[in-house]
């Protein structure tokens, strides 16, 4: 299995642990990743709210570069994923848009490079059983709230690889790794995404709402698949508690970090030290033991 890998800007900075754990997990699972040479920023939300032309052109530059690799694109960032898929959709369905973007990039593009999210690759191309077969440190009984947020599954005609309102790919993968995902109602609620910088007060309210519901449902930690969700639930967790009331510390881990630990990767190999809300209690010092579910006393 081979993919053209598009890391995106977040995975070079705030989400370096998502990058490290994705690469390490893929290595263990036999998924080959070839970095797209000289990839550029997808433009993210600032492009699509500022310039309709740029919002298509920046992703297309990457799609054109990936075409040389002859494999589908895999990306881990939910925002990059949505932007690349949206650009393909527009190029395929809107002839004006295609002509415009070909003029801007001075190169032809037919919208044909397939774009997948790492979750899609893991659950559909590889399958939970392949993960189950590689588990050496089961996430025995760990109660996880799987949080999908907005961009992975919306709008469904462009991005979704599963039911947009009731996704279950993370639950299926984590169950294969021994965890006990909890049922909770806010799986696809938005965390405020890129308002993180321009309006942190909104983020505090939304993060607190999400974290308290996850706790109420019995979760000990949250699994995420998007750098914006992770920052808003992790780095901003302390602010959320200050503004809206105390809660037990609740780590927000990338799904690739949790699965990586389950297939035997070390805390360093999955970048556990990047978390603001500590999750070291997950990994007991005896390397053959199962993952611990005894949270740190605060």
């Amino acid at each position, binding site marked *: 299995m081979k993919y053209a890998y598009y890391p995106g*800007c977040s995975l*070079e*900075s*705030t989400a*370096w642990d998502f990058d490290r754990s994705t690469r390490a997990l893929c290595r263990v699972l036999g998924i080959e990743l070839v970095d797209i*040479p*000289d*990839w*550029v*920023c997808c*433009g*993210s*939300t*600032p*492009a*699509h*709210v*500022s*310039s*309709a*032309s*740029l919002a298509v*052109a*920046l992703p297309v*530059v990457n799609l054109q*570069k990936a075409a040389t690799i002859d494999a589908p694109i895999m990306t881990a960032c939910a925002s990059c994923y949505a932007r690349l898929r949206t650009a393909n959709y527009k190029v395929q369905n*809107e002839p004006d848009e295609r002509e*415009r973007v070909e*003029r*801007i*990039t*001075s190169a032809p593009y037919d919208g044909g490079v397939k774009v997948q999210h790492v979750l899609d690759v893991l659950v559909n191309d590889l399958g939970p059983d392949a993960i189950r077969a590689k588990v050496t440190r089961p996430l025995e009984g760990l109660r996880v709230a799987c949080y999908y*947020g*907005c*961009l992975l599954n*919306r*709008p*469904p005609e462009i991005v979704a690889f599963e039911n*947009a309102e009731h996704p279950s790919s993370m639950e299926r993968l984590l169950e294969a790794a021994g965890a006990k995902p909890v049922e909770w109602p806010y799986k*696809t*609620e*938005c*965390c*405020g*995404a*890129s*308002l993180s*910088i*321009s*309006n*942190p007060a*909104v983020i505090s*309210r*939304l993060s607190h709402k999400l974290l308290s519901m996850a706790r109420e449902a019995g979760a000990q930690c949250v699994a995420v698949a998007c750098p914006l969700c992770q920052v808003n639930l992790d*780095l901003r967790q302390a602010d959320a508690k200050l503004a809206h009331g105390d809660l037990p510390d609740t780590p927000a881990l990338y799904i690739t970090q949790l699965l990586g630990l389950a297939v035997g990767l070390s805390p360093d190999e999955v970048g556990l*030290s*990047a978390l*603001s809300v500590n999750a070291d209690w997950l990994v007991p010092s005896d390397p053959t033991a199962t993952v611990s579910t005894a949270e740190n006393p605060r």
Partner: protein
Amino acid sequence: MADTLQWENTSLVREVERLSGTPVGACFQCHKCSTGCPVGPEMDLLSSQVMRMIHLGQEQELLESRGIWLCASCEACTTRCPMGIDVAAVMDTLRMMAVDRKAAIPDARGEKFNRSFLGSVRRHGRVFELGMLAFYKIRSGDLFSDVGKFPQMLAKGKISLLPKRSGAAKQVRDVFRRAEEEEKKR
């Protein structure tokens, strides 16, 4: 009065429909979009009210509203609208119109953030977070929020002191320039 509703300032509806590529006029005010909006509590205008005001031609009130800048682009409204209206795209269109027409934007932090972010991409081909944040703070005057987080973010490797440039930075500058030319033609 009896044969026609007076509300349609058709020029604004048509213009927003053209720019956003979605049938705003089809909105029948079910409010489903507003019900699922995560930032509803903070918004001065809910998305369904925005739709109605477009019908009514209330351009100035719309372009000067805070709400259009609070939209997090989560696409819940677009996904759930029974009329197939891409509500989130309408929010994008209104933000672009507000900037183009130099509307008095009540809280410019969102707009300054977008500008700082894209400026960074234009220079380096990729986002250089620290440079982007510095520009944002100078532009917005929002100097002190989050500064306390920088040492922790540096220690955890979440922001770096030097930009990671793309090898295609020059190509990106050309793309920005030509995209600007294309935007002028719309």
